[in-house]
């Protein structure tokens, strides 16, 4: 495959990567807005407009940079590292097209590693600020992460066993070739496991409630409490991108229809639209589940995540059994 | 026809006892039914002793010498146990522990229990055998919990849970055997259908069964049916259930239920030996047999309760039987079967007299019942003689069977196993003698109210003791039958 890529192919490939990046940078905040909106409507309020997160980002970007005098360079670099790691993950993952975007680098282990390094950067920043809240948030985030990351990895491993490759484009395209796989038990199991992980990774109810600033329940919010201005904007953007990326990835892994398979730019645009639609449906479903669930007490969170991990292991074993 | 009657007698007795309110004569009627079973069992033995097998119900019931022998064991021990039922129930009603309705239920369940055991040994199908053995668990649960005290409820809870789990594993093993039978020589056979679980066809095709599956299956079966036999590692229900159950029920459970479960193992062992050679099952049986002996020995040493002492002794004897079966030669199996019969009779006598002791003394702690022999000579005498028989004194038949099992073990090269078991037997010997001495001998604190034992109690039990001694001296009526039965499963 790599040998076959011409300069034009490379251009198209880079174009596709850029398109994905733009789609997620814009789409992630919109998805966050959508979730807030759905919750508001379910509670009988009108709620802020869906584009509110984008407006917030613009406002934050125009503000002045303020650093606490106790912080080091880690604090300043972390938001950039977060956004950059997510951006690389987005660029190499097949979201709008199965066209091998950056050769064979779109390995699922690479993607999981990139996502993880973003989380680590944020946790370091939380510790670096030296405040009680920051440290608490970081330690909680790492507790959850230590459980969630293996589950994420194992759940995706189940998919790669089925497809016979850990290369994401190949997983997606072989799913397209075998639509019967969608209803196989290992798919369903790893789907549930991935949903659990994604919910905890992106800080949604029932694991974390992003709209609260109550110290007892804060996880992600506590880490970013010291940020302000453009850097807070970057952190929020990074989180929104990660949310959008994970949902889009799950949507593509399990419902790959509509993804562009050639190098036709029109196909890319269609793929973007369909990806948007799939992701919106998925997010709506998750949010509806979240609304009906009370937030878990913090010490129940490990139970949920180990549950996710077990489901992922189950998916792998089932995959081995039924192969 | 004979098979139908044997199965029908206890069922008919159960139905009659269920319809009629409990009276003494209802109890005697069930005793009559069970003596009928014992008698017809002897008749069945006579018909099958020359290696003939009787079939019934399109071949789903089948009786060969081994089944016939087990029918005799079940008939004899149940006759012994049921003959004491009237005394037991009357005493319970007099003490206000029970009423007519509970007594009726008791009689019905005992008869169903006997019928299930008979079905287990007469079934040609290993699946039906499983169903029958599981049904014995269900029938005996309420019998164990008959007194409805906290202790008896706890015992029956443990009994049902542990035995059901064990039996579920045995079902898994049975399913695996069936699976192997459907895939003989790698080909998928569907034509066999329902007969594939018949142990005759399994035994005939044993050498063609897949070895990997059979290994797994035999381990599960040994674990599963071993639970009901009271072998380690899932033996913990046994002492509780046997000590909490009413005496006649303990006699039935210890005397025959364990043996019926072991019968199932013997059948499967014959199949597994054909598929895997004798080595695999032998090592498994040696492991669980020695394990059971160790556990029984260690808990017998410091036992304070004479009913639990008897329960652990059952475990010891089941361990010995497992070791005998491990040897697996004709001699060994014949000795195992003789041991099953001897242990069934002696243990029934012991549990029944222990029940009588509990009834008159009101305690089951050994040290609180001193000098029984002086105060109640007949009761103490029966208990004493039975205890002596149990620990393997000649002339009782347990001596002969233990001797022959050890001989058979040495003959097949299991000398170290025989040596270890002999050491453990002698430890148990000392322990039981010590417990027996403090129970039977010593200075009576007060004479109390010397009561002579009733004739309905003494006569059947003494007859049983005499019979056991008789079989220990004279092999005549049993030797050809044991030989024929042993050849059914021995290699």
């Amino acid at each position, binding site marked *: 495959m790599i040998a076959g890529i011409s300069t034009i192919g490379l251009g198209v490939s880079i174009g596709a990567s850029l398109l994905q990046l733009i789609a997620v940078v814009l789409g992630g905040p919109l998805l966050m807005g959508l979730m807030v909106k759905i919750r508001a409507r379910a509670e009988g309020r009108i709620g802020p407009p869906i584009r509110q997160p984008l407006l917030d980002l613009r406002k934050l970007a125009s503000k002045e940079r303020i650093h606490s005098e106790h912080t080091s360079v880690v604090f300043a670099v972390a938001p950039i590292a977060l956004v950059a790691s997510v951006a690389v993950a987005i660029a190499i993952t097949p979201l709008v097209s199965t066209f091998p975007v950056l050769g064979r680098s779109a390995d699922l282990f690479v993607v999981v590693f990139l996502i993880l390094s973003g989380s680590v950067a944020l946790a370091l920043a939380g510790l670096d600020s030296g405040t009680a809240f920051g440290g608490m948030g970081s330690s909680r985030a790492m507790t959850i992460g230590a459980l969630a990351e293996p589950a994420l990895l194992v759940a995706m491993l189940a998919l790669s066993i089925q497809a016979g490759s850990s290369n994401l484009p190949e997983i997606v395209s072989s799913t397209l070739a075998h639509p019967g796989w969608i209803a196989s038990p290992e798919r369903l199991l790893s789907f549930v496991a991935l949903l659990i992980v994604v919910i905890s990774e992106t800080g949604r109810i029932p694991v974390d409630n992003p709209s609260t600033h109550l110290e007892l329940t804060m996880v992600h919010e506590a880490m970013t409490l010291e940020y302000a201005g453009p850097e807070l904007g970057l952190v929020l953007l990074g989180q929104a991108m990660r949310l959008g990326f994970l949902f889009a990835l799950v949507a593509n892994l399990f419902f790959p229809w509509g993804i562009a398979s050639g190098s036709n730019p029109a196909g890319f645009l269609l793929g973007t639209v369909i990806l948007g639609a799939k992701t919106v449906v998925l997010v709506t479903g998750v949010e509806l589940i979240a609304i009906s669930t009370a937030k878990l007490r913090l010490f129940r969170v490990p*139970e949920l995540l180990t549950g996710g991990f077990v489901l992922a292991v189950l998916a792998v074993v089932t995959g081995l059994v039924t192969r | 026809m004979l098979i139908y009657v044997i199965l029908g007698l206890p069922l008919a007795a159960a139905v009659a006892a269920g319809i009629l309110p409990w009276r003494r004569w209802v109890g005697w009627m069930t005793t009559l039914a069970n003596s009928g079973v014992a008698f017809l069992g002897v008749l069945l033995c006579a018909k099958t002793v020359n290696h003939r097998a009787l079939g019934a119900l399109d071949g789903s019931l089948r009786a060969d010498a081994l089944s016939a022998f087990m029918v005799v064991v079940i008939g004899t021990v149940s006759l012994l146990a049921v003959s004491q039922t009237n005394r037991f129930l009357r005493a319970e009603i007099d003490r206000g522990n029970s009423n007519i309705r509970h007594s009726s239920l008791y009689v019905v369940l005992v008869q169903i229990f006997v019928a299930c055991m008979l079905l287990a040994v007469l079934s040609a199908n290993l*699946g039906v055998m499983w169903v029958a053995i*599981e049904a014995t668990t269900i029938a005996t*649960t309420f019998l164990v919990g008959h007194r409805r005290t906290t202790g008896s409820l706890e015992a029956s809870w443990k009994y049902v849970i542990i035995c059901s789990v064990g039996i579920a594993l045995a079902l898994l093993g049975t399913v*695996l055997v069936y*699976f192997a039978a459907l895939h003989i020589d790698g080909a998928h056979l569907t034509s066999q259908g329902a007969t594939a679980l018949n142990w005759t066809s399994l035994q005939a095709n044993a050498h063609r069964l897949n070895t990997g599956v059979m290994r797994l299956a035999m381990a599960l079966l040994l674990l599963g049916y071993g639970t009901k036999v009271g072998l380690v590692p899932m033996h913990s229900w046994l002492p509780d259930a046997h000590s909490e159950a009413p005496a006649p029920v303990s006699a039935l459970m210890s005397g025959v239920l364990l043996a019926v479960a072991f019968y199932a193992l013997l059948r499967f062992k014959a199949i597994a030996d054909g598929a895997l050679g004798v080595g695999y099952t032998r090592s498994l049986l040696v492991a669980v047999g020695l394990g059971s002996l160790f556990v029984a020995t260690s808990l017998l040493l410091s036992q304070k309760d004479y009913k639990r002492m008897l329960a652990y002794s059952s475990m010891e004897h089941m361990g010995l039987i497992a070791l005998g079966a491990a040897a697996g030669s004709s001699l060994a199996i014949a000795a195992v079967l003789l041991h099953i019969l001897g242990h069934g009779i002696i243990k029934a006598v012991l549990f029944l007299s222990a029940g009588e002791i509990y009834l008159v003394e009101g305690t089951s702690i050994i040290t609180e019942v001193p000098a029984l022999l002086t105060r109640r000579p007949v009761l103490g005498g029966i208990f004493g003689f039975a205890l002596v028989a149990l620990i393997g004194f000649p002339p009782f038949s347990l001596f002969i069977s233990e001797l022959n099992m050890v001989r058979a073990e040495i003959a097949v090269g299991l000398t170290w196993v025989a040596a270890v078991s002999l050491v453990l037997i002698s430890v148990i010997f000392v322990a039981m003698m010590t417990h027996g001495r403090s129970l039977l001998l010593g200075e009576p604190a007060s004479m109390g109210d010397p009561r002579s034992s009733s004739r309905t109690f003494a006569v059947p039990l003494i007859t049983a003791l005499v019979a056991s001694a008789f079989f220990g001296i004279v092999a005549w009526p049993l030797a050809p039958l044991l030989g024929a039965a042993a050849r059914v499963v021995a290699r």
Partner: protein
Amino acid sequence: MSGSSFSQMLELASGAVLVCAILTLWRSDLHAITSILSLQGVSLGVVAGALAAHTHDGALAATAAVVLVVKGSVIPMLIRQVVRRVPGGRETSPLINVPASLVGASFLIVLAYLASSKITALSSAAATRLAPIGVATVLVGFLVLVTRRKTVSQIIGLLLIDNGVALVAFLLTAGVPLVVELGVSLDVLLVVAVLRVLATSMGTVSGAFDLDKMQELHD
């Protein structure tokens, strides 16, 4: 039923049996666990039904119907009656906590997969390959039985073991002969009925719905 949709159906339903077993470890609400058990019974019935439709086996179809009725509704109903008497209706103090038992379960699942390699080697049929799922259900049932201390939880563990064995039986041999299967179902039903009576009378005699309160018999 066509080949691929048949095997898909089989995979889904057997997967559901195992997931239900995991869920009983996960939840502590006994009412919810009872519903999960009912779902497991239904899945088991679906497995039998799919096999019956595939092989056009009338006896197996009858078995499937029996399993659906007995394990899908009758047994859960009996258990629900016991659960109603348990104060609080929750499994409060398992011997090992939920995350640990979930991790334990994942080890057991891998163990089941390894242990069944001899079985799956014997036949390449779609159903045979799924047999480890049944074995895993049995092992998870053991875990429930050993670590849970409520009487009801023990009944549930027992039923998990039983459902696992039944699943293995269906997958490997397309069901044991009908008469055996009927006997097995009847036995299971009776065991649950017996346990229900026992649990109830233990509750009334000593107020014990906890096994830790049962300490009267020991050496």
